[in-house]
C-alpha cells in the first residue's frame, strides 16, 4: 500500500534535497540494520564448518580459516539419533499444530458468532488466564504429580496446543467473514458444526495459515516444557532441547556420541554446538520466506486489539 502511495507522490511532485537525504539515509540505515540482524547467523554457520583447532587458535571467525566438516561427520556417524530427533520434533509439530489449529479455529468461530449468548462469558473465562495465573510451581506439580506426565511427550504436546492470545487472534480473523454465510447455512438446515466445517473453514485460509504458523513455531522452538518435564531418562528429545542440552552439558553430548568410537577428549565442542544449531534451525529458516507474509498479517491483525 505504501508503495502505491509513495509511487503516486513521486510522479506528481519532484523530490527535493531533503527527500534525497532522508531516502539515502533510509537505504543505508536499513541495510546496516538488516545485515546486523543476519550477521550472528552467518557466524554460526561459518563456525560450524571450521576446524576445532582453528577455533582454539583464532576464535570464531566469519569465514572459516580451516574448513572442516568434522562436526557434521561426527553428528551423522550416529544418524539414528539425529533421525529420531527430527522425527520426534516433526511429529510433535505436525500433531500439535493440526489438533491445536482445529480447536482454536472452532473456538474462535463460536466466540465471534454475534448470536451466541455465551460468547462474552467464555471469552472472559479464557482471557482471565492471562491476567492471573497460579505460576510455575502449581502448574509443574499438576503435570508431574497429578497428571503423571513426567518423561512423557504429552507434557510437551498438550501445553502448547493453544493460548488465549491465539484464540483472540483467530476471533479477529473470523470476524472478517460475513455473518450472512452462517445464516445461509442455517437456512439450508445445517447445524453450527457443519456450517463451521463446510462453509467457514474453507474461507479461513489466511487465519489458519497465520495461526498454524505460530503454533508450529511454538512446537519447533520448544525447549522449555522439555526442560521442565523430560529427565535424562528420555533419550530422544525435541531438537531445540537437544541443542539446549548440548550447549549446557557438554558431557551429555560426549555420552551421546561416545558410542561412535571417538576419543571423548578430542571432541570438537565448539564446532559441534554450532553444527547442531545449524541442523536444528536450518529447516525452519528455509521454510521462512514462504510463510513470512502470514507472519506479518498475524502481527497486524493481532497488533493492538487484544
Amino acid at each position, binding site marked *: 500500500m*505504501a*508503495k502505491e502511495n*509513495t509511487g*503516486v*507522490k*513521486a510522479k506528481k*511532485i519532484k523530490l527535493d534535497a*531533503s527527500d534525497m*537525504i*532522508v*531516502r539515502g539515509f533510509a*537505504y543505508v540505515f*536499513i541495510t546496516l*540494520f*538488516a*545485515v546486523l*540482524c543476519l550477521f*550472528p547467523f552467518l*557466524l*554460526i554457520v561459518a563456525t560450524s564448518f571450521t576446524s576445532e583447532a582453528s577455533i582454539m587458535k583464532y*576464535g*570464531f571467525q*566469519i569465514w572459516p580459516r580451516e574448513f572442516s566438516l568434522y562436526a557434521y561427520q561426527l553428528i551423522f556417524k550416529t544418524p539414528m539419533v539425529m533421525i529420531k530427533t527430527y522425527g520426534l520434533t516433526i511429529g510433535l509439530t505436525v500433531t500439535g499444530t493440526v489438533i491445536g489449529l482445529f*480447536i*482454536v479455529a*472452532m*473456538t474462535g468461530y463460536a466466540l465471534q*458468532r*454475534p*448470536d451466541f449468548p*455465551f460468547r462474552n462469558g467464555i471469552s472472559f*473465562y*479464557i*482471557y482471565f488466564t492471562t*491476567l*492471573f*495465573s*497460579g*505460576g*510455575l510451581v*502449581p502448574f509443574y*506439580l*499438576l503435570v508431574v504429580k497429578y497428571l503423571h506426565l513426567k518423561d512423557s511427550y504429552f507434557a510437551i504436546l498438550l501445553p502448547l496446543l*493453544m493460548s488465549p492470545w491465539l484464540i483472540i487472534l483467530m476471533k479477529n480473523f473470523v470476524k472478517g467473514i460475513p*455473518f450472512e454465510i452462517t*445464516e445461509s447455512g*442455517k437456512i439450508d438446515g445445517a447445524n*453450527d*458444526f457443519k456450517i*463451521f466445517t463446510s462453509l467457514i473453514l474453507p474461507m479461513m485460509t489466511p487465519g489458519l495459515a497465520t495461526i498454524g504458523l505460530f503454533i508450529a513455531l511454538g512446537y519447533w*522452538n520448544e525447549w522449555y516444557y522439555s526442560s521442565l518435564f523430560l529427565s535424562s531418562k528420555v533419550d530422544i528429545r525435541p531438537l*531445540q532441547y537437544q*541443542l539446549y542440552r548440548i*550447549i*549446557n552439558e557438554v558431557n551429555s553430548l560426549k555420552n551421546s556420541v561416545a558410542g561412535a568410537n571417538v576419543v571423548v577428549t578430542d571432541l570438537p565442542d565448539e564446532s559441534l554446538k554450532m553444527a547442531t*544449531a545449524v541442523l*536444528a534451525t536450518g529447516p525452519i*529458516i528455509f521454510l*521462512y520466506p514462504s510463510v*513470512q507474509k502470514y507472519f506479518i498479517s498475524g502481527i497486524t491483525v493481532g497488533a493492538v486489539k487484544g
Partner: protein
Amino acid sequence: MAKKMTATAPVVQRSVKKLSTWQMMKQYKILLLMCLPAIVFFFIFSYIPLPGVYIAFTNFKYNLGIWHSQFVGFKNFEFLFRTGEIWKLTRNTVLYNLAFILLGNLLQIFIAILLNEIMSYGFKKITQSMMFLPHFISDVLVGLLVYNLFNADYGFINSVIRSFGGEGMNVYSNPNAWPWLLPLINLWKSTGYGSVVYFAAICGIDSEIVEAAKVDGANAFQKIRYIILPQLKGTVIILLLFAVGGILKGNFGMFYNIIGKNSVLYDTTDIIETFVYRSLMTNFNFQNASAVGLYQSIFGFVIVMLCNKIVKKIDPDYSLF
C-alpha cells in the same frame, strides 16, 4: 426465529434474552460443544493450578503433597523480603522491561519511518526478511549466538579486538556489562518484528495529507515531524501501555539461555522468572518459587488493571474489557 431470513444479529439476541439459561444452553448446545475442548483445556492447565498458590504459605514437602504440608503463613514472603531478594528481582525485571519497551519502541518507529521511505519493493522485502529472522528462532539459539559473539576465549568480538591489538573482555564474568548488552540483544531480537505494526500504521495514513503537505512545500523532515509522528501517537500510547501492563513478566527464555546458571551475574541479571525456575528446578525450593510467583501474579494483575483503565480513558475501543 432462526428460520427468518432477515433476522439480524441484534434481533436474534434480543429474542434470546427471554429464554432461561438452560434453554439457551440447549438452543446453542452445538456452539457450546465447539467451545468445550478449549474450556476443558484452560480449566485443566490454568484453573486447576490456581488453588496451588497455597504452596506459597506452606513449608512444602513433595511427598506430603500440597494440602498436607505444614502451613507457615507469610514466613516464605518474610524470608524473601528480609534477604532483599525480592527487591533485587523486582528492580531487575522492571528496569530491563522499561529499557526494552522504551528503546524497542523508539527503534521500531524509527525503522518503520525509514522503511516507508524505501521505494524498491524487492529491497524492502529482503531487508524485512532479514530483520524478522531473529524473532523466528528459539531462545536456545539466541543464547548460542550471544555466546558466539561474546565468549571470552573464542568470541568473535574478542577476536576482532585482539586482531587490532586490544585486550579481550570477558562479559560472562562482568555483571556490569549486562544492563547494556541485554537491551541491545533484545533490540536485535524484536525490532524487525515490532516495526511491522508501526509500518502498517504509517501505511494507513491518508496519502492525500502527505501529498497536500508536499504541495505546500513541506520537506521530508517536516513531513515526518508534522504528519507521520502525530498520526502514530495513538498507536504508540496504546502499545506502550499494553507493554507496561506486562512489566513484571520477564523475557524468561532469553535471559535463561544467555545467563543460565552463571551466578556471578545474578546481581544484575536475575529476573523474577529465572529465579522461580531455578528455585524449582535446581534448588527444589517449591515454597520460595511459589511465593515469588504469587507476588508476580498479584502485582502483575494490579498493573494490568491500572493500564487498562488508562487505555479505556484514552480510547475505549482499545481497552481489554
